[in-house]
């Protein structure tokens, strides 16, 4: 800063030109407009859900099974209890399958495979799978486990389809989290004289846990909302069923069936079910976020 500059000169050097200000305003306006545009459908969905779904909510809505008496107006059509429970059961089983396997694959990719050609191939295919439409998974299970074996629909087959859906998501997010763990941590543990597997189980995984839980919850949320795979695998039934070997109801399928019904009450029930599903997923997301905030890495 030369001594010959007066305070006035300095001000002009640092002043923002009017042209800059204009551009700034235009850019801001544009981004704001895009945001609002994107929010509109979201808001509309929420609005419709609430308006049409809330009216169906009642205690009996949550505690009774659908009765299947949908043609005669005035008859009791029942609630969605079996759908809720069915979703919970199938998604739980799917998670039980997908999560350990997914985390296992992620651990292998990060700790052992690293940048070998095989690991990179695996990563490639996992990426591909994340983009595969969910109906494909349903069809795959259908062909292999239903047509191929000549057996019928079952809850666990639905779970399998869902787990295939969840797997790539779990692997991806777990791998990202594991990568975030500083190598220094693994180094210190190794330098203490711990075998590698011990380092992974006792140091790496516990440290990665909060972040991985987030990823897992998101995968679950996605699985809970998929209809297509369940159509070909778990089919549909009215009763609450704790036997995963038989047909099982689920929220997406329930909605699918109800929405095309001519009876208004049934359609309303569909909306109520949709709202329920959305709320369930919302809850899961909130839990994921709370856990993420408490974790140090995610």
């Amino acid at each position, binding site marked *: 800063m030369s001594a010959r500059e007066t305070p006035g000169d300095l001000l002009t050097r640092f002043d923002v030109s009017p042209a800059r200000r204009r551009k700034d305003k235009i850019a801001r306006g544009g981004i704001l407009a895009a945001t609002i545009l994107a929010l509109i459908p979201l808001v509309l969905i929420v609005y419709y859900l609430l308006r049409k779904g809330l009216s169906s909510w009642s205690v009996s809505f949550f505690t009774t099974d659908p009765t299947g008496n949908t043609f005669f107006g005035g008859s009791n059509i029942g609630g969605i209890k079996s759908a809720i429970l069915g979703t919970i059961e199938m998604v739980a089983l799917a998670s039980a399958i997908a999560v350990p396997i997914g985390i296992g694959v992620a651990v292998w990719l990060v700790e052992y495979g*690293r*940048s070998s050609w095989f690991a990179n191939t695996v990563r490639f295919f996992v990426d591909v799978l994340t983009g595969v439409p969910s109906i494909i998974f349903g069809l795959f299970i259908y062909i292999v486990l239903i047509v191929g074996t000549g057996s019928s629909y079952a809850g666990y087959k639905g779970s399998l389809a869902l787990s295939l859906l969840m797997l790539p998501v779990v692997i991806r997010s777990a791998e990202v989290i594991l990568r975030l763990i*500083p190598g*220094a*941590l693994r*180094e*210190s*543990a*190794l*330098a*203490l*004289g*711990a*075998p590698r597997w*011990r*380092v992974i189980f*006792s*140091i790496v995984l*516990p*440290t990665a*846990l909060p972040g991985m839980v987030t990823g897992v919850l998101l995968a679950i949320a996605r699985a809970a909302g998929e209809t297509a795979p369940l159509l070909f695998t778990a089919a549909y039934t009215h009763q609450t069923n704790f036997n995963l070997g038989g047909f099982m109801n689920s929220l997406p399928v329930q909605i699918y069936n109800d929405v095309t019904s001519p009876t208004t009450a049934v359609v309303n029930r569909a909306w109520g079910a949709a709202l329920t599903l959305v709320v369930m997923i919302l809850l899961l997301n909130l839990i994921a976020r709370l856990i993420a905030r408490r974790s*140090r*890495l995610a």
Partner: protein
Amino acid sequence: MTSDGSTLRTADVEPDDLLESGQARSPEPRPARPPATAPAASSATATKPGLSVRLEGLRAFYGESEQVKGVDLDFRANEVTAIIGPSGCGKSTMVRCINRMHEEIPGARAEGRVLLDELDVYDSSVDVVAVRRAIGMVFQKPNPFPTMSIFDNVASGLRLSSRGRGDLHGKVEAALRGAGLWDEVSDRLQEPGAGLSGGQQQRLCIARSLAVNPEVILMDEPCSALDPIATLKIEELIAELKQSVTIVIVTHNMQQAARVADRTAFMLGGKLVEVGPTQEIFTNPTDPRTEEYVTGKFG
């Protein structure tokens, strides 16, 4: 300073001076040689002796690139040896070969022998995990395990090795005392390790290494991330620790090497240039390259 009224100062007069004044000298003490370095803490007072380490023809590679080009070096038991040299001279790589951490990097390998008191740690029959228990390591950036409390951090080495778990409390306390941390944390052992200050975290890492009772501790620039006071505390700690372990310290800070080490080795371009008592290296190095490096003409 100026001579007073008398023409001769009494100090100048010695009995034979007037005649055989060829021998007359001012009476300043004249050591023939600079005094030798004080020896390292005698092993007679060591609570448990450390072991010596000897490198024979050590070479280290990252893929095809050779970073350490044939080093023969002795680290004496219960002494602190400092390794100095400009960036990229291979000192960290060399030290990582000692506890076989170098090979954990994909594509990295080492050749040659590393003898822990006559046992070659690179011998095919040797369990690398056992080597790392005997040769501990403290890294540049303090890194306590984030999910663990102070107590768990120190105990982690013992738990991970699934051996010698008896009296965990006693061992943890001994380790924390050895690292000079006990007084500061004894009342909050269950608090997270990451909540300590930088200097304390590094001492925690030292305690963690001490808990598994190693014979050698390797330190890779342990103080470079710390403030001066924390650095001094750790240097004092090193001076005490050498009674029970052999210490090898890699450092960029020559003053630190000068303060802390019994012997200093200078490396350049993957090779060992000179090694000797620290006092010699810093007052009268033999190799001109050493002279240039320590006087700051390059590096």
